[in-house]
C-alpha cells in the first residue's frame, strides 16, 4: 500500500464554502451527510490513475489537505496554519458562487500559501493586492472550484459564470463549478471529471517528472502559465 508515491494538494477557501463536502465527494464518491466545522486540518486520500488508459498508467495517492479557518483569523491561527503548507504540490481554491466575498478572498488565500517561505517569524504581512508577477512565477498548479451551483438562479447563471471565468484567468487555472451534494457533476466522462483528472495529472507531473528534467509531453495549457520554465524546455 505504502509503495505508491504520494502527492500533496491543499484545499483552501473561506469558512462554509464547502471544502469538507468537496473533499469527501472527491475521495469517497459519496455526499457528506453531516458537515461540521473543520478545526485545524482534515486530510483525505484519493487514489488516482495517472495517464489512465495509456501504457504509462500508474496509480498515485493524492492527499487532499482541507485546512479550516478564515483569512481574517488571528495571527496565531495563521502561524499555526503555515505548518500545513510545507512541500505542497498543488492547490485547489474553493469559493462559494453565491458569495462574492469568498471569491475575492481567494487572492488572499493564495498569497498566504505562496508567501509562507518569506516570513520565517511566522507573522504574515499581506497587503491583499493582486500581484500578477507572483502568479506568473508560480510553479504550483492551481484549480479553482465554485460550489453551490444549484443555488444560483437560472437567470443569474451567465453573469456568475463570467465572473468566475475572470477569476480563474487571474490564477492561470482551470475552473470547475459544481454542487457538492450531487455526485453527477463529477460523473466519469463529464467535462468536470476530465478537468479534474488533468489537474491531478499536472500535479503529479510537476512533482515527479519535471525535476528529472524530462520533457513534458504536449500539455494543452496556455503559454502564460509556464512563464520562465517554458523557455528551458524548448531547446530539447
Amino acid at each position: 500500500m505504502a509503495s505508491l508515491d504520494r502527492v500533496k494538494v491543499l484545499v483552501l477557501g473561506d469558512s462554509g464554502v464547502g471544502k469538507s463536502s468537496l473533499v469527501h465527494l472527491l475521495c469517497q464518491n459519496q455526499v457528506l451527510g453531516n458537515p461540521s466545522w473543520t478545526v485545524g486540518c482534515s486530510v483525505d486520500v484519493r487514489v488516482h490513475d495517472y495517464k489512465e488508459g495509456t501504457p504509462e498508467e500508474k496509480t498515485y495517492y493524492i492527499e487532499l489537505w482541507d485546512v479550516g479557518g478564515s483569512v481574517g483569523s488571528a495571527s496565531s491561527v495563521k502561524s499555526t496554519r503555515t505548518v500545513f503548507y510545507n512541500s505542497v504540490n498543488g492547490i485547489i481554491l474553493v469559493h462559494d458562487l453565491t458569495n462574492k466575498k469568498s471569491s475575492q478572498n481567494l487572492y488572499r488565500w493564495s498569497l498566504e500559501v505562496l508567501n509562507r517561505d518569506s516570513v520565517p517569524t511566522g507573522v504574515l504581512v499581506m497587503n491583499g493586492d493582486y500581484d500578477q508577477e507572483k502568479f506568473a512565477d508560480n510553479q504550483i498548479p492551481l484549480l479553482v472550484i465554485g460550489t453551490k451551483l444549484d443555488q444560483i438562479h437560472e437567470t443569474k447563471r451567465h453573469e456568475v459564470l463570467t465572473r468566475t471565468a475572470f477569476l480563474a484567468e487571474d490564477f492561470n487555472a482551470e475552473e470547475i463549478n459544481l454542487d457538492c451534494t450531487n455526485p453527477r457533476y463529477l460523473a466519469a466522462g463529464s467535462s468536470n471529471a476530465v478537468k479534474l483528472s488533468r489537474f491531478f495529472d499536472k500535479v503529479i507531473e510537476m512533482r515527479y517528472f519535471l525535476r528529472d528534467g524530462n520533457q513534458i509531453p504536449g500539455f494543452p495549457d496556455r503559454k502564460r502559465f509556464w512563464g520562465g520554465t517554458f523557455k528551458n524546455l524548448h531547446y530539447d
Partner: protein
Amino acid sequence: MSFLIDSSIMITSQICFFGFGWLFFMRQLFKDYEVRQYVVQVIFSVTFAFSCTMFELIIFEILGVLNSILSIEQLISRVGVIGVTLMALLSGFGAVNCPYTYMSYFLRNVTDTDIIALERRLLQTMDMIISKKKRMAMARRTMFQKGEVQNKPSGFWGMIKSVTASAPGSENLTLIQQEVDALEELSRQLFLETVDLYATKERIEYSKTFKGKYFNFLGYFFSIYCVWKIFMATINIVFDRVGKTDPVTRGIEITVNYLGIQFDVKFWSQHISFILVGIIIVTSIRGLLITLTKFFYAISSSKSSNVIVLLLAQIMGMYFVSSVLLIRMSMPLEYRTIITEVLGELQFNFYHRWFDVIFLVSALSSILFLYLAHKQAPEKHMAP
C-alpha cells in the same frame, strides 16, 4: 419655534448616528463577509442610533440646549434591569481580566522549542491519519473492482444474509475508521494547543515593546483601581449605603473647603461634568465597539454572522440604556432631574445596589476562574 429647532437637531443627529453605525458595520464588523440581507444592517444601525440618542440627551441637557419631550419609563425599567445585570457582569469580569491581560507577570514562558516540538507532533499525527486513510482508500478500491458493492441488503433474505456473512473488507474498514476518528480528535487538540502557544509567544513579544511596557504599567494602576472598586462594592453592600454625591461635586467640595481655592462653582461644575461625562460616554462607546468587534471575529462565521450581529445589536442597546442609568450617579444633582424626567420615576437606588452586588459576584467568580485556568495550563505543556 423651539420645537422646530429641537426636532431638527434630533433628526440630524439621528441621521449622523445611523450613518456611523452603517459605516461601522460595513467596514469593521462585516469586512470579511458578504451582506446578504440588508435588513440586518438597517436594524443594527437603527439600534445604534437610538442608543446614542440616549447619551445625546444627557449632553444636551448639561449644555441646556434641548427641551426634552420623550418619556419612556416602563420600557426603560425593564430593559434597565437586564442591562444593568449585563453591565455588572461584564464590568466584574473586565475588572479582573484587564490587569491579568495587561500585566506580563502572568505570562507563561514559551520557547521556540516548545512550539516546534508541538508542531512536529501535529504533523506526525497527520501522517498517521494519512497512512490509515490510504489503506482504507485502497481497500475500498479493491472491493469496488472486485464487484463487492456496498449496498444495503434488501428484503427478507437479504436481512438473513447480512446477519450471517459480512464481507471481511468492511469489518476492517470500520475498525480503521474508529482509529482514524480518535487520531483526528487528537490532531484537533494539538492544533488548538499550538494556536495557544503562538498567541502566548506573541504576547510575550508585545510586552517587550514600548507599547507593551506602557500597558504593563497601566495594568498595575488599573489593578489597584479594580481592587478599590471591589472593596467599595463590598462596603456598599455591607453597610447598606448608596453614593449620594458624585465625584465632581465632591472634588469641588474638597478643593474649596480644604485647599481654600475660590472659584465660580456653578460655571466650573457644569464644564467639568460635561467633560467627565463626555469622556465616560466616548470611552464606553469606543470600548464597547472594540469588544464587540473582537467578540464577533472570534465566534462568527459566514453562516451565523447575521444572527450574531443582531444579538450584539441588542446587547449594545441594553448596555447603552443601562449606562445612562448608572451615569446618573456621576453627575451633579441639578442635572439628574432631567434624566429622572425622561426616564420616569425609577428606583435608581435599586439599580445602584443591584449593580454592586452583581459586580462583586462577577469579579470574585472571574478571579476563581482565571486562577484555575492559569494553574491548569502550564501543566499541559511542560509535561514531557
